[in-house]
């Protein structure tokens, strides 16, 4: 393992231009080390989701520097960014975003197809392993639309892990779940950092959830106000 720092943001600015230019992010700088469990909190409109999309390389319209695993993402092509997302970043969304056309296990395997590093059998074995760790191996063959919200979110977490990413990013992972399922998801995340030594970056407005994480980055009006 080379770099200790998994992800580093250096004075990121972002503004939405329109009739009135709105600065969403102002001079955001922080870094996340490997194995860290960090959360970004802030009120609605504080720019936390925007920041997450920039960190995930999906949004490239910003100024400043973003380094993932020590490599700057500026001047990378769309294809190279996609490869970075595929290999180094796992993503869990608020709305589970599974592909309804596929079974749960196929959904988990999809990013693996793209990475194409292991055989399909091995990939399926890995995917099944992750589903088992999350306690939903029985649902592997079910179609995505047949699952409940909590089950979907766990499948999404398994999908985020399939390529053994450097960092897993979550956008309001519990925002759409009841407290019981939210607890399950939180415990899974905790296991991820403790058992698998994963790096996690969670965006949430749920202060209780954030308090249980290792580190809180608070955003207010596009600025990092406290760590």
């Amino acid at each position, binding site marked *: 393992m080379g770099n200790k720092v998994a992800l580093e943001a250096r004075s990121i600015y972002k503004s939405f231009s329109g009739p009135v230019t709105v600065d969403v992010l102002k001079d955001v700088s922080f870094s996340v080390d490997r194995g860290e469990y960090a959360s970004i909190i802030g009120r609605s409109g504080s720019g936390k989701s925007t920041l997450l999309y920039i960190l995930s390389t999906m949004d490239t319209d910003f100024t400043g520097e973003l380094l993932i695993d020590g490599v700057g993402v500026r001047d990378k092509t769309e*294809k190279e960014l996609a490869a970075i997302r595929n290999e180094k970043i796992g993503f869990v969304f608020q709305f589970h975003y599974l592909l309804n056309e596929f079974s749960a296990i196929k959904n988990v395997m999809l990013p693996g197809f793209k990475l194409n590093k292991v055989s399909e059998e091995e990939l399926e074995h890995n995917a099944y392993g992750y589903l088992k760790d999350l306690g939903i191996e029985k649902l592997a063959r079910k179609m995505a639309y047949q699952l409940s919200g909590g089950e979907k979110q766990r499948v999404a977490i398994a999908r985020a892990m399939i390529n053994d990413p450097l960092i897993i990013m979550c956008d309001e992972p519990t925002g759409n779940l009841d407290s019981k399922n939210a607890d399950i998801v939180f415990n899974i995340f905790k296991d991820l950092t403790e058992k698998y030594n994963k790096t996690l970056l969670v965006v949430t407005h749920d202060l209780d959830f954030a308090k249980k994480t290792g580190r809180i980055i608070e955003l207010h009006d596009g600025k990092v106000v406290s760590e």
Partner: protein
Amino acid sequence: MRLKHLSDIALALMLARWKQTLVAAIGVTFSIALFVTLLGFMEGLNKLLDGIVLNRTPHIRLYNDIQPSKLQPIDISKEFKNYHNFISSVKPGKKRREIYNAQQIINKLERDDRILGLAPKITDQVFYNLGNIDLNGVINGLEVEQEAKLFAFSDYIIEGKYQDLQTISNSIIIGQGVAEVINAKLGDVVTVTAAGGEQFPLKVIGFFESGITEIDKVQSFASLSTTRKLLGVSNNYISDIQIKLKDLNIAPTLAIEYEDLFSLDAEDIQTANAQFETGSGVRSIISYAVGITLLIVSGFGIYNILNMLIYEKMDTIAILKATGFAGSDVKKIFISISLSIGVAGAIGGIFFGLLMSLGIDAIPFSAPSLPTVDTYPIDYGIQYYSIAVLFAMLTTYLAGWLPAKKASRVDPVVIIRGK
């Protein structure tokens, strides 16, 4: 990214909207089926119609035309070289229709490997005598076997055997029109008067019908020797040499060559039947235009359905991109959807096209001018099928390309934030 996995995703997306996909594929099937049927039918007809003329017409005909010499003495004279020649209405001199040294010419032509075969012929004016009335006619003296072999002579004999011309002396095959007028039956004897004035009784051993009344009313056929006797000419008299070539297209150049070589008049098939080539060409163009329009229309069908699919599957596209699929992967997925619709449609289209062609091929069709044909003609040329498939692939690719490009540009952030 393996092709198998891309196609897996494409297949899943297609199955999610299998009804529309099926409709698009049926559109392609329909257009390809019609394309091959239309062209097969049209080209079949073209070939049949051209065949009526082309099979019976010599590719090159060598003969002595009755016309004044192209080079008049005054043109050759050195004395009047710089003068303007205004002598008009020059008459031809006494010139026989006979081809001189016919046998030598035939021998020489037979060694020419561009020639498939040749048949000597005698043509002359005659009268059919019906009591006091004389009917105008044309007698054709043929080398019967060659004529049958090269120019499908036997196809047009509706009664009797053409071989009898050779075996029965003083025999004749008369046109159906002539036969009706002079009320002749098989085995009857008709009197024929040659232009020279000699009368000759000939036994009717068959009837001929080309389907063109004007021809059937005047033409009759006899063997070379019978015709020579009738016309009172020598044993090697020949007025025409009919040549069939291996390659029809060299006829015009070869005609000029023979004209110079043998000092005869030569007429090539393209000059003699220019209008047939034009007709076939135009018919082909029209059917190709209709067929290709059908294929383009089916392309629009695919375009529409893919566009719909993309709008419906925005979430899927966004998630694929968020999990690391590049725009080019998304593009490949949608183009492969489009191409699979195209391929499936094409396979179906070829199948149904062949079926429809077979159906048309079985419909009875009879025309008096086409004695060898009893069902509608179809040309099963592989080229129509290949063009259809090639063009279908092209249109489906293009129809898929635009929506696929749109899909590849979907911004996942916009979709995911929009929730």
